[in-house]
């Protein structure tokens, strides 16, 4: 690495493309961005009533329901002479002497429920106009969010929550307000009540969710420890606005990777990049130099957004934490795009690759962030840090590491695998994407122990995917644990064996059973060692969640004596056995590999399921 040359290439990358982007293009982009900026608030904050008029109602002008219907834009009034309209399917609700009658369909049922909610909203609106507010709203509520004693803070290998299926709050056994959990009185700041929508006594009581969106449209005060108002004003914490704000961080990245992918791929078209490869610069200089402008551009943009949003949200300068948190995400987008542009053979393929990256990474950043106020689960995504930073909450160092390290490591692996392909032999080759994937994996492998190292390198991905699976699946209730176990088995077995198959595909090793078993052992041991990254999860107490426990640690429970050794060794044996099974298949051909992989996954799942069943 030579910083001077890296910077020279970076400068070239900037000027080359600045020359490429003529004034006309820049003007159009500026106009488009300005237009988007104008449109975004309208679209983003749900101003567009996408469900306007989806339910058809027949109602008399003089009915009291008429006002309710008129008050909710999801309804559209249709003329109907008789109740028959319900049967004929021309209206979904018929409001007559017998009250409200829905059509006998899913739509009718949905419309009825919608009307019920609208009525409640309408009632609150009307009541707010009453002279006697005490009679109109005879109950006032103040909700305080308070810390409870923490469940089980004494960490240590294998001390997971042994009864994770019960809800933590109903544990009668936990009578120790133990070491880490003495902050129960810290959240009394609720009295200051700055940004909360304290309503009850005064005017605008009901700003109910006319849009039909999930509750949360109105909760949005950015920092809240307390809610108050009439019961209808109490909405669960759902940082909807913060999410919209956080979304602003992700959008620029999606444009960025378009341009970045293009420049990387164009280096490969027509062998353009060959001459850089033959000049006295290393490929790290080239990759670094070509990446730096995009990274810097992204960080400047994100920095400006962070500072701006923090200023808007909290009225002060800040945003450093948001920027630091978003950095691994930027690198992850760039790394994945870089690797993708090394795989793609044409711009068309690149488009599909970037769309995939956009979708997968955006969901990785988003889904967990939705649960920002709910659980440490949210910390899976670095965006959570951003949302919390915007809300002015404190972020622990451990949480920060847990949030940012896995994406950072994954980004490095992407760049590592991609730069392995950044050489004459692979760059200008027209192999298919799957072939390139195998190339990338087999490239660094020449000895059996390399297989183990490669397994360890792939672990950040396994970790990120499993975390994402937990975030996606934990809401599925009873099914979540088995589903997660399936994901775990599939992901882990693929991560342990795909590079073994790749190296057989590249004739790296003899196709004997003995060698295959050696490779299996190497991969299994590598995984067992690398898996310790999962201990990160304990930093933020994620293991208190049953699904996380199941997903991340193969279910090592509280046991004592000689059994401990068994439970330490059992996962090691499992990983070796399943990796060896896959390796035995991989040495033959693709079909044999897929078959063996399926067997390995099945074994892995059965093991995990048994262990989780008996101990969790």
């Amino acid at each position, binding site marked *: 690495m030579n910083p001077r*040359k890296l910077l*020279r*290439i970076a400068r*070239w990358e900037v*000027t*080359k493309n600045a*020359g*490429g982007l003529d004034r006309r293009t820049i003007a159009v982009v500026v106009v488009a961005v300005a237009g988007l900026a104008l449109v975004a608030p309208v679209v983003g904050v749900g101003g567009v009533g996408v469900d306007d008029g989806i339910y058809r109602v027949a109602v008399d002008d003089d009915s009291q329901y008429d006002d309710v219907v008129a008050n909710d834009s999801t309804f559209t009034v249709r003329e109907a002479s008789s109740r028959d309209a319900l049967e004929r399917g021309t209206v979904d609700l018929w409001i007559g002497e017998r009250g409200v009658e829905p059509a006998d369909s899913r739509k009718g049922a949905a419309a009825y429920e919608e009307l019920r909610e609208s009525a409640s909203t309408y009632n609150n609106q009307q009541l707010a106009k009453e002279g006697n507010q005490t009679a109109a709203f005879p109950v006032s509520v103040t909700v305080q969010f308070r810390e409870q004693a923490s469940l089980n803070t004494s960490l240590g290998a294998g001390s997971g929550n042994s009864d994770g299926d019960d809800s933590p709050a109903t544990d009668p056994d936990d009578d120790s307000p133990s070491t880490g959990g003495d902050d129960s009185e810290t959240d009394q700041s609720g009295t200051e009540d700055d940004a909360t929508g304290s309503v009850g006594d005064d005017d605008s009581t009901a700003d109910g969710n006319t849009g039909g969106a999930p509750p949360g449209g109105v909760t949005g005060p950015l920092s809240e420890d307390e809610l108050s108002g009439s019961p209808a004003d109490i909405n669960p914490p759902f940082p909807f606005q913060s999410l919209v704000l956080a979304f602003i961080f992700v959008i620029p990245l999606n444009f960025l990777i378009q341009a970045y992918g293009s420049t990387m791929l164009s280096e490969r078209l*027509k*062998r*353009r*990049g*060959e*001459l*850089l*490869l*033959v*000049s*006295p*610069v*290393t490929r790290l200089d080239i990759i670094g130099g070509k990446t730096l402008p995009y990274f810097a551009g992204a960080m400047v943009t994100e920095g400006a957004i962070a500072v701006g949003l923090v200023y808007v949200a909290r009225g002060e300068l800040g945003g450093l934490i948001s920027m630091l948190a978003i950095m691994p995400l930027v690198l992850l987008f760039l790394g994945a795009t870089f690797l993708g542009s090394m795989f793609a053979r044409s711009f068309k393929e690149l488009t599909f690759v970037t769309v995939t990256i956009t979708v997968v990474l955006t969901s990785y950043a988003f889904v967990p962030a939705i649960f920002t106020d709910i659980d440490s689960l949210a910390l899976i995504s670095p965006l959570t840090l951003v949302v919390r930073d915007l809300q002015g909450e404190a972020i622990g160092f451990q949480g920060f590491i847990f949030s940012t390290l896995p994406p950072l490591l994954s980004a490095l692996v992407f760049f590592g695998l991609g730069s392995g392909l950044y*050489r*004459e*032999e692979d760059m200008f080759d027209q192999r298919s994407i799957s072939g390139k994937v195998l190339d990338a994996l087999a490239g660094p492998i020449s000895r059996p122990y390399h297989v183990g190292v490669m397994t360890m390198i792939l672990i950040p991905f396994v970790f990120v995917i499993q975390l994402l699976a937990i975030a996606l699946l934990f809401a599925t209730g009873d099914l979540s644990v088995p589903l997660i176990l399936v994901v775990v088995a599939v992901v882990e077995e693929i991560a342990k064996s795909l590079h073994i198959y790749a190296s057989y595909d*590249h*004739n790296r090793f003899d196709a004997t059973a003995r060698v295959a078993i050696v490779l299996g052992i190497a991969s299994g041991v590598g995984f067992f060692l690398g898996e310790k990254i999962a201990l990160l999860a304990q930093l933020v107490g994620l293991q208190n969640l049953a699904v996380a426990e199941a997903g991340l640690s193969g279910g090592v429970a509280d046991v004592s004596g000689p059994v401990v050794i068994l439970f330490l060794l059992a996962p090691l044996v499992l990983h070796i056995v399943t990796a060896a099974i896959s390796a035995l298949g991989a040495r033959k051909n693709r079909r044999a590999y897929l078959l063996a992989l399926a067997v390995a996954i099945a074994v892995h799942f059965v093991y995990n399921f048994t262990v989780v069943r008996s101990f969790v």
Partner: protein
Amino acid sequence: MIEAWELRKEYGGFVAVEGSSFSVDRGEVFGIIGPNGAGKTTTLKMLAGLLEPTAGEAEVAGYDVSETEMRHQLGFLPEESPLYEEMTPKTYLDFFADLYDVDSAVARERREETLDDLDLEHRNRQLGDMSKGMKRKVAIARSLINDPEVLIYDEPASGLDPLTTNYIIEFTERLAEEGKTIIFSAHNLFHVESICDRVAIMNEGEIVARGDLDRLQDEYGETTYHVYTTVEIPESVRENGRYRTVVESMEAVDERREQAQAAGGEVVDIRTEQSSLEEVFLNVAQSGRPGQ
């Protein structure tokens, strides 16, 4: 200046180059010839450090080809000149000069000098708008921007019109006279004959013949004898009042002489003719792998 020992390159299971060894001295022009797919480009790319040999080693200007320092001493011209179309010759050459650590004042001077030598006009036009020949000239200028000792040129004149081709061949000759060590590949043998000191012929990944042109002609070329007699003998052709017979060995010449004497005539002239490099090349290539 260039040494290669048993270079071997495999792609997957396919052997592109096998046991390739040769050395090129300072100031020498070395040509590699052979049909398409013979492994010429692969060999040159291994020398340029672009491809890592599967086995074997190579040195250029005293450095192993894997060392970055070697690249400072090397000018490489790939078969196709992929240029950054949005740049001008000026910005393009300056960019590479910077990567090669050439002082900017020196680079400017060298750039103008080389572009003058190459008769290149429109130095501020975008490369994408230039003709093939002009692009090739820019690519050659780029290979000289670091004043390298060794030049590796892959098919320097391929796909150009005859005028530009001649121009570029002459330019290469001049570079050789200035003392550059040049190794290049070609399948147009006319150029090789005119400027090469020594050549290697490759076929199916192996060097099947090598040496200076005379030796190759002796070894693989055929010498034919044109025997002119005063009388008609079998297989003879009448030519300017004499009869000409073409044979391929001295024994056959003796035989014809006896035939002529038996018919009452005599041999008046014997001329020998050597085959061209092109014929040598065809012979070698067609016979596949003749014993060395």
